[in-house]
């Protein structure tokens, strides 16, 4: 696995193939974030594609010491913040557990949902979540806690 700095440097030096490595490395993170934000598989794919496209345009300006994963996630959040929740889903996930995850996360307001997704789905540290969301650590901890509690209660109600 290549380090962020290597990927960025190679991209800067004109190695066009390296972006394929970037997609390969981070497509899971980005697609997950998109799917859990919009709930629809087709739409999630299209959003993830837009994010990588935006990343491709912006990557050449990126300092090589930037943490690529965090930067990509920040870019994704910027884009996903404005995504409207559809009234109905055209292509929900086929897996029941995945649908349950979506439904549970949909109970949360957007700021709480992002905090929980980054922390508990993508398993980032609280510090990294704070960095990505550009928020103080205390605010992030509070959002994660409140998000988890809301989600837990809604899930418990559903299981009754």
């Amino acid at each position, binding site marked *: 696995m290549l380090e962020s700095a290597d990927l960025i440097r190679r991209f800067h030096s004109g190695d066009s193939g390296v972006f394929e490595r970037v997609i390969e490395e981070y497509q899971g993170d980005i697609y997950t974030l998109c799917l859990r934000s919009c709930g629809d598989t087709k739409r999630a794919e299209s959003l993830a594609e837009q994010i990588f496209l935006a990343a491709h345009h912006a990557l050449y300006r990126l300092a090589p010491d930037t943490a690529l994963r965090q930067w990509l996630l920040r870019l994704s959040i910027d884009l996903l913040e404005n995504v409207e929740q559809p009234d109905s889903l055209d292509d929900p996930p086929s897996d029941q557990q995945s649908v349950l995850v979506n439904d549970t996360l949909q109970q949360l307001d957007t700021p709480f949902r992002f905090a929980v997704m980054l922390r508990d789905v993508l398993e980032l540290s609280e510090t990294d979540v704070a960095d990505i969301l550009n928020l103080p650590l205390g605010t992030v901890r509070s959002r994660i806690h409140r998000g*988890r509690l809301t989600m837990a209660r809604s899930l418990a109600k559903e299981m009754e």
Partner: protein
Amino acid sequence: MDSFFARNRLSAYLDRTLPKPEAEAVAEAVARDMALSADLRAMKQALTLLEDHGRAPAPTGFKARTMTVVAQQPVPGSQIAWLQRRLARVPTEWVAVLGAALIVVAALSTGSREVKEQTAPAVQSQKVQPSPQAVAIEAPVKAQAKPTPLPPTEVPSVKAPAPTPKATKSLSNIPFDPSTPMGFRILHGGDQVLYDIATLADETGGRLVNVHGKLVTPHSLSEARSFTQIYLITPKETAVAAHKKLIQRSGMDPYPLDGPRPPLDSGEAVFLIEAQL
């Protein structure tokens, strides 16, 4: 520990980030309070669900499809960066001289092509003796085509060739229909790009909104927030002007907008603008 305080520490308790005495106090409170214990159980259940099923693998072929779209993009950042880095090593005066030379060469070649295109029909319609000026201008074309006499009336247009940038030509030919929303990409817009767009919105009597139709206040872009998506809503009467200005600002072909869009009144048109630092 009071149940209220213990509840506020459940998350940290599950993450095992509490100091030992505090963690013990939470455990005691949980053992004492049934509601707190139920919250803890439910939270554990939710976290297990997210941990086991939260991640979703990207669909098969996603990478290849995305690479295809990326490859179709007109401005690959890496090449620009490559050029910028190399140009940064060359003295500015040299770059200026080289640029000027390129413009002259481009202008001459465009002029020659125009002469060639314009002379052919002229010869068919009127047989006129070649003027010395025309012959002089035709000289560079000789190697490619048979010299053709040029009537004196054709000379002024040759004297002032107006090279049009290829991109502008193709962009201005795109028909615009205010009822078909378009998306624009502004790459390398600079940190003040949103203020530029806000000025454009003022000039066209429009407003900047997010996807929910809520007004957006312009802000500076930075490395941390280098990308933004906003919508410009204008009256249909000024939509053509807005479209033209956006094309100029973007420098790229717009694309049909088929994604979400903010709510509109009947007399309004919408544009999506994706702006980058």
